[in-house]
């Protein structure tokens, strides 16, 4: 009896578990911002799409390098993990053999980092889409 209000205040609100909780992150990984768009957050999804795609494409245009799956040093592995975050953009780059890198260009290193950051930002966007799907965020 004495603990009833304490127990109520500690209760965790039920999460909305549905197909969207899987679909939104999956689609959001494949196409940046799509996880928000399928949940009718059109403006947010569009802005995320433009921002992440622009960063990735600028990275390619700056002759940045795409990391492939490797068992090399930790920085190469981290670069791969970052690039994978870009989802469909990463897959397209692999298919088209883009992102070979260019040591001769000083800003090519910036391009490499742009693409890694685009992937990492997409991971954040995927998490945000998931939180919207479970009702934790509007």
């Amino acid at each position, binding site marked *: 009896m004495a603990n009833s209000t304490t127990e109520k205040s500690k209760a965790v609100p039920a999460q909305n578990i549905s197909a969207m909780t899987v679909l939104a992150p999956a689609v959001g990984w494949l196409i940046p911002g799509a996880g928000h768009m399928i949940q009718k957050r059109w403006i947010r999804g569009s802005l995320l799409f433009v*921002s992440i795609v622009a960063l990735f494409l600028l990275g390619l*245009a700056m002759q940045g390098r795409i990391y492939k799956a490797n068992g090399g040093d930790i920085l190469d592995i981290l670069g791969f993990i970052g690039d994978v975050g870009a989802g469909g953009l990463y897959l397209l780059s692999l298919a088209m053999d883009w992102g070979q890198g260019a040591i001769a*260009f000083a800003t090519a290193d910036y391009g490499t980092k*742009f693409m890694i*950051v685009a992937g990492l930002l997409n991971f*954040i966007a995927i998490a945000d889409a998931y939180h919207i799907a479970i009702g934790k965020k509007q």
Partner: protein
Amino acid sequence: MTITLNHFSAALVFSFFASIVFGITHRDNARDMVRYGVYCFAMFLGGVFVAGWAMWILKR
């Protein structure tokens, strides 16, 4: 097509797009998203200037 950006331009572009994503994903309503995005952009650019001057001082 090759694009060549100088250091500051690259930092500016990076800050702009990263701030948009941060603003959207870290706040709940539109007004707060815009405010936080602008705040992040200011912090990014401020950090660029601070780091630049710090490197200049260290080089001296």
